[in-house]
């Protein structure tokens, strides 16, 4: 990954109307370095959708950033908000980076499910560990997803299953369990 690509990603994020500030953080995830943009937002924003926004705007040229981390709202906001606390974010990301990083789907079932997710959510791609809600799922996309699961896998997945599993990987696991009976 080129460093100029990462700078572009930060610029793209800073131009997003809901983003107040964005800085780059590098963390070790599963033995490799991942670049994550830590952002401060005006209002609630989905980190996964911000990540996909960057991905789409940079023409899908690859991993301009591996993930976007949205700073938690402070308990007692101070005027101006102060600087983004990189040390705190680094500490949190060591535990939780996998929640926001794009994880490529593995195997046939995950790939098919990721394609289906992307189709109903009208996104260009979906990671294996992205949460349906975080991806902007609404009741219409949920209805479409459940109907397609029934049609293609003859699977009786209900809305409670969908929200409990919620990711492509989780749903693939559930479908395999149901297949085995």
């Amino acid at each position: 990954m080129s460093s100029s690509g990462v700078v572009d990603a930060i610029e793209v994020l800073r131009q997003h109307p809901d983003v107040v500030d964005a800085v780059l953080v590098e963390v070790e995830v599963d033995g490799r370095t991942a670049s994550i943009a830590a952002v401060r937002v005006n209002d609630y924003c989905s980190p996964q959708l911000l990540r996909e926004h960057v991905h789409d705007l940079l023409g899908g040229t690859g991993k301009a950033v591996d993930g976007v981390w949205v700073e938690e709202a402070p308990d007692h906001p101070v005027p101006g908000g102060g600087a983004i606390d990189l040390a705190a974010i680094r500490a949190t990301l060591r535990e939780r980076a996998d929640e926001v990083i794009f994880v490529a789907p593995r195997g046939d079932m995950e790939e098919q499910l990721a394609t289906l997710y992307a189709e109903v959510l009208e996104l260009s791609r979906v990671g294996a560990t992205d949460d349906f809600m975080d991806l902007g799922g609404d009741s219409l996309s949920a209805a479409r997803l459940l109907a397609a699961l029934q049609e293609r896998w003859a699977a009786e997945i209900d809305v409670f299953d969908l929200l409990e599993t919620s990711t492509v990987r989780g749903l693939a696991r559930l479908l395999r369990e149901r297949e085995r009976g």
Partner: protein
Amino acid sequence: MITIDARLKQLGQTLGERPAIITAAPDGGCEELSWAGLSDRVLALAGRMRAAAGPDTVVAIPGYRSLDGVCQVLAVLCAGLIALPYEPSAPPAELERQFSAVRDRLAAPVPAPGLLGRASGGPAADRPPAAGQGGYVLLTGGSTGVPKPVLRAGMPFFHPDKGPSLLLQTAGWRLGQTQLVVGSLAHAAPFNHLLEGVLSGNTLVIPELFLPGPILDLIERRHIDWIQLTPTHMRLLEPALAGRPGALRRVSGVLHTAAPCPAGTKRAWIEAVGPRRLFEMYAATEDIGQTLCRGDEWLAHPGTVGRGFLTRIRICDDDGRLLPPGQVGTVHMRGLPGSRSGPGTTRPGRGGFATVGDHGLLDEDGYLYLSGRADDLAIVGGENVYTEHVAAVIMSHPGVADAAVVAAPDDVLGARLIALVVRGRLESRGGLESRGGDEPLTAREILQHCRDRLAGHQLPAEVRLVEDLGRLPNGKLPREKLRRIVAQPV
């Protein structure tokens, strides 16, 4: 996506003479309107309304339980105007309070009679409204007791791929079913289900009054498939149901809203309808999320309002920290977007979660139990009453020095209001000329004062005269202490 005006036209053509709306008078007499008739009447009226009012006009429209009443409400929606349905039996002072909240937060509501007058015989607009126009406003109590308008912007629509909401589909709703509509058409649940029923091409059966015997007759005679009720309706129907165990055998779904429902009543209904056909839902008018609970789940988790339906739930303490299962805190919900929200919506905070201030706990299986509503909210007969507002009305009487209103449990209504009133010194009552002399103010006079200013469900069931409310130094009421006082017989 088909907006309501186009959908009505479509249903008028495809369903033709099938009944759309049936209203039933207490004497058993019925009036009926076919889909072709409904479509013609509503769309003609909508065209004239649209010519008589600017786009996005808020129209205050009475929710009369008659063919005309329903047609007028639908016409406002089909005209691309913003409908503000109100309860026609509410006293003027309460309506003024509601309208003034809409005026402050949204726009001044235009009374329907004036608009209907201008529209009658006038020309029709030459173009249909755009989909983004119009919508409707419902009022919710909010945490302050001041009515809070919640706008659903944009004309209601039907999604042919999806059909009615997933929650309704799960709760036994089928397209084209025969549906019973009870409850005030100005309230969120009856209004939304009326609207979904029209969009679904259902036959809507609307009794003018809620009388238990005739309602059960209607359910049997009209082969009702689906019903939405409040726990108060369930309690009122329970005795009649006991004598006619088969009355609900044909019904495919009964959905009731969450307000404290006596366990005995809940069990009687699960028995009468069947454990897989009785559903309970919990949601706020603000639309931050919802739960659904089927009868068999309730039997396994008695007292629950169910699991989040396309909604994640968290229980937090006052500092926003996450609480483990079994601990009571504030209920935060994160529902799916898709609710078209406007001014007055509760904005999501951390991680997309929002709260309306209700309290409760989650069990290990993720079932939600409500332990009480935001401090001063009581639910009387399925209707939200803010005790602070009732107390404020009592305190507006010049002879009253202080007042508190406390909700006590009630078998039929869920809660009843008890007013504790401290009388002022007589000198301060100079304005009361109708009462000669120095006789002290009576409980009866206080009640009369309330009757002139409040709707029926907001009225105290009892007024007790007390010496002191024991307010805390910060002016707050010792609520727990007052609840204990109220629990004791006089």
